[in-house]
């Protein structure tokens, strides 16, 4: 019982926040009609997919005490690569695998540089942010990469001919979230990720191969970012080297709103997913309220600060 109440307290914060924003947007006259409908939530879920999949990888990285600023650029680069492969007539599954591989490769480079050169993740990924974005533009010759059509385009559409089913992207994000949560909680790899983030010196002293572990974490997270790139491509239906600028900040914000600590060792997949949903609900609700985008940006900025502040208050009371 005590265990349950403690988990509720620790995980409940983001969840209460999510309920709160949903309730708030259900009340005004402008949104009352449409906000709390199945169709709107289908849109919200679909809009969450890219950030949510990115947040899966980012949660691993942040829990391990790291950060990755190159996510938006990785997504742009993989989506350009994917579009070019489709142009060459590749089938959807090989395209998917190739894009995940490209993402993983960027992660591998990040991880190797961070662990091998012993440099801070902030600097390394700030560098790859530029490198990957530039490469994407170079590969695409500074234009969007268009293709006739591909089944991939159907993976993120909300215009579902069968009426009620959610698009493939939502199911994939959901399934991966469950798998990643299990990976982090129940496996040696996952527990080592927490150990690394909580205290790297202890992890090393206890015989954890920290260098290899870091490379593995960034590579796996990179694979998630590659997959996020796939759904970005599916949504835009073209490869755009200028897409997802600054998306890493949304992803980091989701993870932080979800209760993770930037100093490492703390964070949950469930929390990050709720964090991603909070961001999507805020965007969706603000649009329906007819608020201008600058107003949305201000609100989301404030929510991040308030969420982390409340989280700290709660932690303080617990201790």
């Amino acid at each position, binding site marked *: 019982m005590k265990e349950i109440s403690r988990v509720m307290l620790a995980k409940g914060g983001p969840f209460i926040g999510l309920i709160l924003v949903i309730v708030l947007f259900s009340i005004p006259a402008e949104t009352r009609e449409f906000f709390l409908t199945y169709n709107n939530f289908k849109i919200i879920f679909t809009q969450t997919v890219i950030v949510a999949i990115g947040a899966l990888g980012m949660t691993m990285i942040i829990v391990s005490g790291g950060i990755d600023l190159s996510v938006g650029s990785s997504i742009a680069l993989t989506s350009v690569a994917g579009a070019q492969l489709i142009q060459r007539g590749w089938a959807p599954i090989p395209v998917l695998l190739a894009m995940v591989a490209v993402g993983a490769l960027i992660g591998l480079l990040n991880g190797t540089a961070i662990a091998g050169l012993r440099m801070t993740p902030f600097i390394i990924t700030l560098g790859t942010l530029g490198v990957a974005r530039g490469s994407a533009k170079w590969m695409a010759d500074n234009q969007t990469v268009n293709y006739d059509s591909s089944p991939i385009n159907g993976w993120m559409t909300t215009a579902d001919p069968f009426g009620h089913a959610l698009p493939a992207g939502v199911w994939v994000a959901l399934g991966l979230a469950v798998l990643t949560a299990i990976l982090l909680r129940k*496996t040696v790899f996952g527990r*080592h990720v927490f*150990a690394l983030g909580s205290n790297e010196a202890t992890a090393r002293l206890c015989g954890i191969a920290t260098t290899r572990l870091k490379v593995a974490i960034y590579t796996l997270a990179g694979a998630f970012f590659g997959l996020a790139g796939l759904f970005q491509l599916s949504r835009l239906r073209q490869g755009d080297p200028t897409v997802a600028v600054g998306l890493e900040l949304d992803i980091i914000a989701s993870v932080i709103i979800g209760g993770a600590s930037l100093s490492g060792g703390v964070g949950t997949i469930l929390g990050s997913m709720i964090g991603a949903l909070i961001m999507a609900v805020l965007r969706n609700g603000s649009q329906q309220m007819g608020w201008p985008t600058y107003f949305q940006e201000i609100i989301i900025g404030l929510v991040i600060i308030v969420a982390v502040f409340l989280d700290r208050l709660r932690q303080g009371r617990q201790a």
Partner: protein
Amino acid sequence: MSDVRLRLTAIQKSFGATRALKSVSLEIAPGEVHAIIGENGAGKSTLMKILSGAYGADAGTMNLSGVPYLPENPHDARLKGVAMIYQELNLALHLSAQENILLGAESARAGWIDRKTSRERAQAALSQLGHEGLDLDRLAGDFSIAEQQIIEIARALLISPQVLIMDEPTSSLTQADTEKLFATIARLRARGVSIIYISHFLEECRLIADRYTVLKDGETVGSGEMAGASLDHIVTLMTGREVKDLYPRTAHPMGAVVLEVKAVASKPRLRQATLQLRAGEIFGLGGLIGAGRTDLLRAIFGLDDLAAGEVCILGAPTRAVGPKNRWGQGVGFLSENRKEEGLMLNQTITDNLTLTKLGAFGRMGWVNGARQEAVAQRWVGELRVKCRDAGQLIGELSGGNQQKVALARLLEHPARIFLLDEPTRGIDVGSKAQIYQLVSELAAAGKAVVVVSSYLPELLGMCDTIGVMCRGELTAVRPRAEWSETEIMRAATGSAG
């Protein structure tokens, strides 16, 4: 009594259901050095936090020089004349010594630093301490710990404190620096500053303090003149335990050589060390801080690369180095630095205790959480770790209990060769006694133990063989019977004949 600088009467403080202080009374005269003695958890830190204004008391009165003393916060306490030097120094390492001394109390005119007055005030504070020679322009981070402490004391002196609280000031000082600090304290005493001195080193308290007060479970259980008190009496007050029980000695026959260190060196400090360790042997490593004792353990454990020499475990030279291999070979390492290296403070007791062998709690990379928790819970019971349950975050435990968990990690692994670096540093006497008992039992069970300790009675009390390091070299290795405290100090300072 008019000559009372600080008087505390029946101070009480509770945190939720926990009564940290039940009733503490204290009287200190001007120019008196007063030792506060007690096990961890006895209420010393809570009392100091109340004195320095970090907490308010629930009940009781405080008087400073005859007026009620009710500090609102540490800054207010400082202005009222009570300054505190924390165990963990609070310096801005990237600022100069002078900037640190004047931090928060800069001499300025309309926001511009007045260089001349600043220099004079900083210099004046240093001369009060007898450290005029300290280079005020050097960055604080470039000074030794002992010098940094002087900077911090100088900062406290800027506001001419009536009472100066020092929390474990010698915990990271060498013998020589400790003596210098005592000279500084004597100067302050002569100027009429009252000093509250907190330390786990009872001998030290006896050397420096005029009077003492013993706390136990949040209550004052005794106080008096230091000169007339015996250490045994004080330890009995603290623990209700006789001091001779501290170092248990069970018979432990020695077996085959399990660890051989041959002319090992590592950068930057360890120059040369050779030793042999037998099953059932407790090998003590003495020496000053910085003599290379920790470096030797780290080199044996594969945390630092060897620049020369060889480490043989169970008779075979080991090519495979690194902590992972060492754990695999049955070697366990206890870090001297619990907070920064030894433990993951924001993780549970369970995760900390089982980190070296997670794979053993399940198959194919899965961790069976229930089994892991059961094992941790068993150790918590066995070592009497004070905690809610094994799921509690380790950062919430006291130092002694944290250390028990850190040690349990080696016991659970299980290790055959124990490398223990300052296993009793900063923990209460009760936990210390328990750790001595544990080490003795390990030896009786045929395990081999290397213990680094700066505390000589401990080395002489628990070890079979003692080696002393000096300036990166392991110079003398002899059976315990051939050592005395003086002998060890001589060897450690390189003045052995």
